[in-house]
């Protein structure tokens, strides 16, 4: 299917932002992930922040470093500029909620109000294939110590996510595999026969040149290192 010019622009901006997050996760320096102020951030950049979601603040979240105020202002502007429509898909609503949570955590003294948690009914009884796909899209929610509805739903179906990870690898859907792998580093009861660590290395070898894949793999690596469980 032919992509619109704006869609291509947006995808490029998302890839650039993901690359910056990967660099920050690897180097520990997250001060230049987001533009240094709302004046510098154009529409496409703001939209890219909205698409990358809470992961735009991931270096500060995982490395527990104080947020850069200017970057945080850009993040907040993206949250406020692109709220989900009333009839938006669950992943759109949850992505926005995850950003609001990240913003609130990074700036608890701020005036931003956290919206109510969206429902998880769309995951009830979902096939393992669909569940894995949706979780991979919502990989920014895969963080240590969280207790939101999606995380609880994932925690109840570890084996299904493991099956989905294998399926994604075999389908060569590296983004889905990387997102599912990030979840699996957090979930309890992952089958040892899965070979998750080696599987993630394989995903990196095959798809790691895609910054959005690399971002999930780097997050998984950091999560595995901290040994955090849901």
């Amino acid at each position, binding site marked *: 299917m032919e992509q*619109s*010019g*704006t*869609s291509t*622009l*947006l*995808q490029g901006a*998302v890839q650039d932002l993901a690359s910056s997050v990967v660099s920050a996760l690897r180097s520990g320096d997250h001060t230049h992930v987001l533009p240094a102020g709302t004046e510098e951030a*154009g*529409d*496409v950049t703001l*939209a890219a922040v*909205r*698409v990358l*979601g809470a992961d735009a603040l991931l270096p500060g979240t995982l490395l527990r470093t104080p947020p850069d105020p200017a970057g945080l202002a850009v993040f907040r502007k993206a949250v406020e500029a*692109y709220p989900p*429509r009333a009839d*938006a*898909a669950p*992943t*759109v609503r949850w*992505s926005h909620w995850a950003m609001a949570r990240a913003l609130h955590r990074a700036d608890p003294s701020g005036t931003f109000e956290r919206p109510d948690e969206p429902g998880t009914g769309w995951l009830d009884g979902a096939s393992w*294939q669909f569940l894995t*796909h949706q979780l991979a*899209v919502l990989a920014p929610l895969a963080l240590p110590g969280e207790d939101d509805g999606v995380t609880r739903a994932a925690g109840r179906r570890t084996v299904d996510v*493991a099956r989905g990870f*294998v*399926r*994604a*690898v*075999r*389908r*060569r*859907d590296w*983004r*889905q595999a990387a997102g599912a792998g990030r979840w699996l580093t957090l979930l309890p009861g992952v*089958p040892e*026969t*899965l*070979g998750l660590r*080696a*599987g993630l*290395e*394989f995903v990196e*070898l095959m798809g790691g040149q895609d910054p959005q894949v690399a971002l999930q793999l780097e997050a998984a690596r950091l999560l595995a290192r901290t040994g955090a469980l849901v």
Partner: protein
Amino acid sequence: MQTEDKVLDKLAGVRSADIEAALDPAEADGVFRDSRECAGLALFAGGGKLLLSPPTPRPKKG
């Protein structure tokens, strides 16, 4: 400035449709591995037995 206006028009179009499509993507078309590739993958993985399991059934045509 006409070119600049066109670019600005394009940027103004980065709104809900493009963003929601990116946040709610359909599953990418997949290419399944055959058994020999999976065996190679298991060797690479150093014992990931699950990756050697039979392929997921595909829907039959017709």
